[in-house]
């Protein structure tokens, strides 16, 4: 039995990231949207407007926490306070899973608040597997790691990223959040084959797909989440859907955030691609799970 089926992971349809400029509209008018992703750390506080908004949003929509600061590949000990807050958030919004990135964010107690890549080799793999297991034991919901965009590669890497991620997910028994824009960006930056990457990811472990826009900087692509999803990335999305089947999809837009209409239009584009590839299968139906 595949990972998604084993954990009864629902297909939530196509959602967008819940971001500050749209919160008032979403809470007041309740516009149609299949689901929202929230940045976990923004909702860790014990009080204030973010927490109040979270309660209201959770009453009206399905919310999935997505973190940026766990530092699963870091070498500082995992912060137990961080994990406790994440677990509390997951239970507050009754999330069927949560996610973070395959990366590290700091060292020696300094946090650079970025998603830094790892050297992909057997030593790093054992290190990350061990940390994923500990995190999963603590969280008690399925946990997925996202492939991050990257701009550097290590001399000490002995395997491609997709192989590292595939082996990590199998051995640590975790999910994968496949960001097809990040695959596209990193493929350009490092000169690997994006389609081969998508083809090598264990399809049944993909709990969620990310789509986003990026910025061309000449010698490299920068993962800015500041624009429409590129047609080439939608092609990669089609390929991922053909492999993975009926999987929740999320459009990320974090800079130069457009109007709600433009953002929900971007989700509609992704929805039509899904329908075209999967047929108009209803969300939630794929594994007989309920939201």
């Amino acid at each position: 039995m595949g990972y998604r089926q084993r954990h009864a992971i629902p297909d939530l349809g196509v959602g967008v990231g819940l971001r500050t400029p749209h919160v008032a509209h979403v809470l007041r008018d309740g516009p149609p949207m299949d689901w929202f992703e929230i940045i976990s750390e923004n909702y860790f506080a014990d009080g204030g407007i973010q927490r109040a908004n979270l309660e209201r949003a959770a009453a009206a929509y399905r919310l999935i926490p997505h973190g940026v600061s766990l530092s699963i590949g870091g070498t500082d000990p995992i912060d137990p306070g961080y994990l406790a807050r994440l677990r509390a958030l997951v239970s507050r919004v009754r999330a069927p899973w949560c996610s973070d990135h395959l990366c590290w964010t700091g060292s020696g107690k300094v946090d650079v608040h970025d998603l830094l890549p790892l050297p992909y080799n057997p030593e790093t793999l054992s290190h990350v597997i061990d940390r994923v297991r500990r995190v999963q034991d603590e969280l008690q919901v399925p946990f997925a790691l996202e492939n991050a965009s990257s701009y550097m590669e290590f001399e000490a890497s002995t395997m491609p990223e997709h192989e590292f991620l595939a082996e990590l997910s199998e051995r640590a028994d975790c999910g994968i959040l496949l960001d097809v824009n990040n695959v596209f960006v990193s493929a350009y930056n490092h000169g690997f084959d994006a389609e081969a990457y998508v083809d090598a990811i264990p399809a049944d472990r993909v709990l969620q797909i990310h789509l986003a826009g990026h910025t061309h900087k000449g010698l490299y692509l920068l993962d800015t989440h500041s624009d429409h999803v590129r047609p080439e990335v939608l092609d990669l999305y089609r390929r991922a859907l053909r492999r993975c089947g009926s999987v929740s999809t999320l459009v990320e837009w974090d800079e130069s955030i457009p109007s709600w209409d433009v953002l929900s239009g971007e989700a509609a584009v992704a929805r039509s691609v899904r329908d075209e590839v999967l047929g108009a299968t209803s969300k939630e139906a794929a594994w007989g799970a309920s939201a």
Partner: protein
Amino acid sequence: MGSLRLDEVQALLVGAVMHPAQLDADAAPPASALLRPSARGMTRASRLEVYREQFWIRHLASLTEDFSTLRWVVGERAFDELLRGYLQAYPPRGWNLQRLGADVPEFVASSAPWSADPLAGDAALLDWAFMEVFDAPDAPPLDLRVVAAAPPDAWPQARIAFLPALRRVVTGHAVHELRAAVKKGEECQRPLAAPTHAVVWRDAACFLHAVAVDPVAGELMRALLDGTRLGEACASVAAAHPAVDAETFDANVGQWFQQWTANGWVCAVDI
């Protein structure tokens, strides 16, 4: 470099990512030896530079949003220099970007040339108080029945609890008025020195406010915030102001308490 442990690799990279000046082939940090040049012709150092540039963009933007009054006081260009100095003296720690500026008041008060301008120190204190009350823990509202039912002779023993999302800020300028004007985008003038006790708080609807309070009321709040019982707190503050007669002082305390509860500042009375 191939034999380095992962923690050593990461320590080297953090140093390069936080480097204050641009990295290129001529200024390649030791960490660049860990990397491969890109298939598209980027050097090792220029690949690291992508991360270094983002480090500064991200943290400067975050602090700029958090310290709008301080920014106005020192001016845009000097503010950028101040923040760069701050981030080198106090590298970001922990996941919480909301806490990135926690040491800005200390840095401004103790580092030249910023420490020479008391208004800058006041602005940093006030801006940080706003950051703290923004997401401080919620508290249930005061149960007025407890207050109404308390026998008069029990009050001296009472402990007054203020909102977790409330800060007292003692400054040499009415910097809360400056902040309000800066936030509204109004034409501002440097305020003259004016010792001020301000209270910054988040109300039940999550709006943030700051008002000046009577300095003596501010002193009483400080004692109460420290956990001193009401009777003892009043006695010590009254002793510091012998010119005010006892009857007036008691009447003032009654009035202040009414104001505090009307503003929603008091969340519990342990009586």
